[in-house]
């Protein structure tokens, strides 16, 4: 039996004006993603994968079309509502980790909790717990430049998890990592999927393809499968 739909895009278009011409980064995308699905998105460079992830992650708004995230119509939201959605419902993992260099691993993981209004003591506890879950108990007070790439990406995953979002988005999470560290990340995401998260990964890594339930192919801003 299929789980309920958690992400729904209907006829979504995203255009970028660039030097007088419009780049049609996404051209008429309709897509339904169910709860607890693990999906891979693949496609050539420039096909619109990141643009799609940014829309689902509410970092950007569609030019046209409807976008429903966790039963909320995201296309009509104001910036504050979008910020709240990013904070509560979505965890984002980036290719380049995007940790704040002046904060320790623990402080980096705490960040979404600060904006969720969680008090200091609980923040520390939750952050510690999530770092432990990704195997970094002994790296709590390290700064990003004192961590390996794989460790940094694990901190980023812990950060994506702190607010217990239903959806995890990962845009080429293993793109900057060696294969061994990459494997660890794949395992962690697979594990999260087993625990009930809905996960969307942009990656050409065959390991992700193996564990995915569905693979979406993009080309020139359209879904081709």
């Amino acid at each position: 039996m299929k789980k309920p739909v958690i992400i729904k895009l209907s006829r979504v278009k995203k255009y970028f004006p660039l030097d007088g011409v419009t780049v049609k980064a996404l051209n008429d995308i309709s897509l339904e993603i169910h709860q607890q699905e693990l999906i891979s998105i693949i496609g050539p460079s420039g096909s619109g994968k990141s643009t799609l992830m940014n829309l689902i992650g509410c970092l950007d708004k569609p030019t046209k079309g409807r976008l429903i995230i966790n039963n909320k119509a995201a296309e009509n939201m104001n910036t504050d509502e979008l910020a709240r959605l990013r904070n509560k419902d979505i965890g984002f993992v980036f290719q380049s980790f995007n940790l704040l260099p002046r904060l320790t691993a623990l402080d980096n993981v705490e960040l979404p909790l600060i904006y969720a209004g969680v008090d200091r003591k609980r923040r520390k506890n939750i952050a510690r717990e999530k770092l432990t879950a990704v195997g970094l108990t002994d790296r709590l007070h390290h700064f990003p430049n004192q961590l390996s790439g794989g460790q940094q990406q694990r901190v980023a995953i812990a950060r994506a998890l702190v607010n217990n979002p239903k959806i995890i988005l990962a845009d080429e999470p293993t793109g900057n990592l060696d294969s061994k560290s990459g494997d660890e990340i794949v395992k962690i995401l697979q594990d999260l999927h087993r625990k009930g998260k809905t996960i969307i990964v942009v990656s050409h890594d065959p390991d992700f393809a193996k564990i995915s339930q569905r693979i979406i192919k993009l080309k020139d801003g359209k879904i081709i499968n």
Partner: protein
Amino acid sequence: MEFSETVRLALGSLKSNKLRSFLTMLGIIIGVASVILLVSIGSGLKQYITQQFEELGSNLIMVMPGKIQFSDEGGREGGPPGVATNKLTLRIANKIQQESEYVKTALPIVTKSLVAKYGNNSHPTGIIASTEQYTVVRSSEVSEGRDITKAEVASAKRVTIIGPTLKEKLFADSNPVGKKISLADQKYTIIGVFKEKGATMGQDMDDMAFISITAASKQFNIEKLNYIYVESTSADDTVKTATEVKKILLKEMDEEDFTIMDSKDLLSSISSILSVLTIALGGIAGISLLVGGIGIMNIMLVSVTERTKEIGLRKAVGARETDISSQFLIEAVVLSLAGGLIGIILGFIGSLILGHFLKTAVTLWSVLLAFGVSAAVGILFGFAPAAKAAKLDPIEALHYE
């Protein structure tokens, strides 16, 4: 996000860049310190002069020889109150004393510079000659010996009361009462020593010898008075007194060859000039505060650009626009308030040090103003960078290198 959390965040990022934070504050520090310091000099000067005038007495009127005109432009016309046009005599002083009901005392004053000698010690000093009422009107107390009597004034007796500075120069620690000193070769017996008065308007009031006005005219052939102090019966009647004195003087002289100055008038015009001066000094220093504020804005704008990626990430994990803008605004306010506080402390210390050389007075209003202005500067100049940060597009910010 809670306010305390925002403050913690702002403090954290300021701490992580201590040198820059300090340099950013420097403009405000200098601005605030100079406002406090310059205003303290201005108010110190005003207090000092007001105090000096109050010592003169608020019901005092001074009659000076010669005509000094205060024209509209504030310049002085006519000759200086010179000896040539001096028509003030002891007789006129007595007339003023007798003919007006508003006059309590008309004190004739003669001054002269000369050399005082005792044994082998000599010291250039000045004499002040007047009547036995001098000590009362000028509130000069005699601390050793006694005051001069009416009889001694009437008989032009060769007695003198000396100031403590002159006493020290000629007698060091020994008791001078009863000793004879020579004032420009005229022998005078010391009957008393004045209590210490300190300096008034930069002049040592204790370096003098007092003799009777009659002795001065007899032994030094002085006929003309340097000025007449008129004490009116009450401080409220100084204007009426001045009018009366003028009438009496005009009867005695064929033209207005004198100047009447009321200490209240003089004080109020001087103090208003000093207020303007104080405000002007404060205003000039205030400009440096403004420059300091622009410095903060400048650095904050650079900081926003530098931290574009950080802002993008914060937005991506759920920071609202107000969270971002308040973080930067509070950073600016913390910078300017901390700068203001340090500036106030430095200005205070500066005015204490300067207080050894001239009178300074740190006023509460200047401290409050400096603090308020630096807070306002922080908000005002922190606003543009904060708004810029808040409006950044999260994706563009994340991709900023």
